[in-house]
């Protein structure tokens, strides 16, 4: 077990290095520092001196990967690659173009992102699983068919519609909560209710439909027949036998996104004006702030790798066949 975990962590190292190299290539080779400077400064007033000044201010005036002029170890360390990319391994992201410390920014913006994403995740899972179990309880009836139709309809509607429609109805017509914005402390609740609610509803369609399929697959298994032959009531059969077995694919499917909850949601956060990491990324893209975007791309990859690792571990937790073999 421990050997397995250690091996999985070791596997992650080459993947992270690969991610780092590819990110570097995307941001500095495909798109050279000169291009960045030109885009930042605007095309009109650009002079070679201005570009040089812009690069020097941000440390982009060094050679990419090999500094032939430096001495000794600095041949490697005094380069863009080392200063910008290798440092990311220590989660040292440097400063954004506006001069703020990216790492600090990430730490403060993480909280609002999580405040939206975690309730959406837990509530969404709970609602979808309950709804799917309900459909399975009424399997092969019109209620089941109607439920599936509803799911397909709900997943066919764009999530933008849910957001705009929800904001219009709940905030504009009913005046229940503010349309957008954020406040610290307990005041945050009234800003969070609407985005959480809308995200949960928008997610029900596709996940409940998937979970229903998984439950149905389990319901038709032999061991369920055995359980019924013991004289178990149907609900006990569903909760004790079917749910526990179907949770294996469900949990392992959702565990992968848990670390990514930190990243927040690009769309939700920008529509509701929540100062989280999602809106931070969107703003950075709009402002052509590559230092921020690079940091977010790298963090996203790390969290995804972490998610995959957690997925494999979660198998060993929920499935005795994997745990004990």
């Amino acid at each position, binding site marked *: 077990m421990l050997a397995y975990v250690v091996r999985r962590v070791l596997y992650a190292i080459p993947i992270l290095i690969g991610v780092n190299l590819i990110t570097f290539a995307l941001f500095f080779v495909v798109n050279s520092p000169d291009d960045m400077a030109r885009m930042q400064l605007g095309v009109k007033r650009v002079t070679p001196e201005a570009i040089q000044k812009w690069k020097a201010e941000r440390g982009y005036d060094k050679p990419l990967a090999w500094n032939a002029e430096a001495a000794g170890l600095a041949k490697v360390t005094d380069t863009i690659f080392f200063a910008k990319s290798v440092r990311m391994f220590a989660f040292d992201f440097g400063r954004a173009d506006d001069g703020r410390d990216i790492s600090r920014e990430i730490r403060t913006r993480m909280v609002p992102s999580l405040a939206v994403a975690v309730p959406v995740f837990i509530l969404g899972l709970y609602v979808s699983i309950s709804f799917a179990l309900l459909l399975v309880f009424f399997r092969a009836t019109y209620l089941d068919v109607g439920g599936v139709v509803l799911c397909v309809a709900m997943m066919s509607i764009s999530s933008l519609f849910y957001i705009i429609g929800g904001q219009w109805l709940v905030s504009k017509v009913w005046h229940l909560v503010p349309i957008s914005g954020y406040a610290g402390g307990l005041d945050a609740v009234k800003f969070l209710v609407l985005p959480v609610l809308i995200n949960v509803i928008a997610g029900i369609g596709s996940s409940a439909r998937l979970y229903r399929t998984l439950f149905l697959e389990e319901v038709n298994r032999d061991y369920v*027949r055995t359980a019924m032959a013991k004289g178990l009531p149907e609900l006990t059969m569903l909760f004790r*036998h079917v749910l526990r077995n179907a949770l294996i694919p469900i949990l392992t499917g959702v565990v992968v996104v848990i670390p990514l909850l930190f990243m927040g949601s690009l769309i939700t956060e920008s529509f509701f004006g929540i100062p989280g990491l999602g809106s931070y990324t969107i703003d950075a893209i709009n402002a052509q702030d590559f230092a921020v975007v690079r940091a977010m791309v790298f963090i996203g990859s790390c969290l995804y790798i972490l998610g995959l690792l957690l997925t494999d571990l979660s198998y060993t937790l929920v499935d005795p*066949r994997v745990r004990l073999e």
Partner: protein
Amino acid sequence: MSLLKVRDLSVAIGPVRPVQQVSFDIDEGETFALLGESGCGKSMTALALMRLLPAGGRLTGGTVVFDGTSLRELPETGMRRVRGGRMAMIFQEPGTSLNPVMTVGAQIGESLALHHGMTGVAARERAETLLAAVGIPDPARRVDEFPFQLSGGMKQRAMIAMALAGEPELLIADEPTTALDVTIQAQVLDLLAELKAARRMATLLISHDLGVVARMADRVGIMYAGQLVETAPRADFYARPAHPYARRLFAALPDVRLRGTALATIPGSVPSLDRPLCGCRFAPRCAEAREICRREVPDWTFLAQGHAVRCHFPATGARSSGVPAPAGESVAAEAPAPLLEVEELRVHFPIRRGLFRRTVGHVRAVDGVSLRLVRGRTLALVGESGCGKTTAGKAVLRLLPATSSFLRLDGQEIGDLPESRLRPFRARMQMVFQDPFGSLNPRLRVGETIAEGLRALKGRGAEARVGELLEAVGLPGAMAQRYPHEFSGGQRQRIAIARALAVEPELLVCDEPTSALDVSVQAQILNLLRDLQKRLGLAYLFITHNIAVVDFLAQEVAVMYLGRIVERGSVDEVLRNPRHPYTQALLAAVPAIEPSEVAPVRLAGDLPSPAAPPAGCHFHPRCPRAVDTCRASYPGETAFSASHTVRCHFPG
């Protein structure tokens, strides 16, 4: 007084009517067997009794009276008390019929809580007692284990323990041993017989196996196409089956006495049950059918005490138990050059553990097997699941890399040829697989499947040959345009054989080609294989666990146990005069149709893991004759004749 009275039971699933007007009684302490081939409605009858029909299924008529209570009128809450309490059921596949994420104890505990209100320590102790009662060693440990930690036989025992938890008066056993090996099957059947005697529990046994029914049942009912066509006391039925379908089933059984003759087959197939049928359902396939059979549904005819048949012209007189064995097909008179020679075949799979996946041991799936096979002959490789016979078959064809071997086809060494130079030899040896449903690509027309090998290895005139090949295996050539799902199991196996024959092989490795098929279909495939051998001079390496098939088809036998051949010789030598205790037990475990008085040798325990085979003779932990010598060293070969050799310290 009858414990269970079933009258005119009918079931519908959508337009299909899998059970129609089935009536039977079961007395206290009696075993009634429902016998029939797949799709005859026997399992559906059992599920209907428990009111556990699959979604969309419903009872459309008839009554079920259990100990004076009509089960059809019982509300669901009342039915739940009967289900698992007074009437319990065990199923065919112990591997999938237990919940994989619940411990055995918890699953037994559910029944105890439901029907006896037992929980906690009391339930745990009772579960242990039940596990001990069904012969599971070390129940205190097993009660906390998960199903996957138990062997197949133990899982089935655990399921029986679950069924016993409610102290049922009626046990419904749906093919309880079909998924098990013969030696394990014998153990489980013994257990069921003991329990029946000890608890005076009535049993409804559902089986397709004439041997199992002969061993277990007091009375027998034969089902065909959703109807019961004959009921009789066991002895009466086995001596004088009256329905032509029953007689045909007996005649389709492979047997040594039928060597050299063709097995009787039943032409056509079971009618589909989604439309009304007129006349006798068996009439289209019955050789004795007359005008009236096609017009009128036969009523029950009573022949003797308790023996009734639904046929216009029931057969009378004893069942012919085959002609005496022919003088034998002059076995091994000459010694022609062998087509296939295998020496010291080993296939070891590494077991990797730890941080760096170091190899810490090997699963010795095949551990030093030598075979010789002559053109036009059949060598049967016999053994239970996990003994390595399939691995050996694949390694012979080099479909699996062997760890070490000398492999000669027609005198040429092919064991170490690189894949590119092996290609010409691929055409000379082919394989037919066990599962005809999984071994054909569902997206390819059968013609394309057959032509594929031709194009790859012969590269010419593929399409023209396809029709020819299909006809050679008894299918119309025009069927090449169809997809596999349009065929029945037997037809698919014919297609698989046609595919293998396409490249004109000399050697055919048949891996359990009939074990997924019904008896009457098995007979057709065996006949076909024998005809092809006569016509084309093929050599068969026939991998099987079915002794009767070996007896019917093969000339030589090799018995495998845990990766090694423990006994080999001609069919007569090995099957008539077995010397190795394992062979003896294996033969004794096959349930025979003809009753015998000799108390059979029974093997205790399960096949050990090939990763850690027992020291000395691998068989000693299960061997009734084992002494210290057996624990110390693996026995060498003892020869009883030029062909008959045994690896045992004390061959008897």
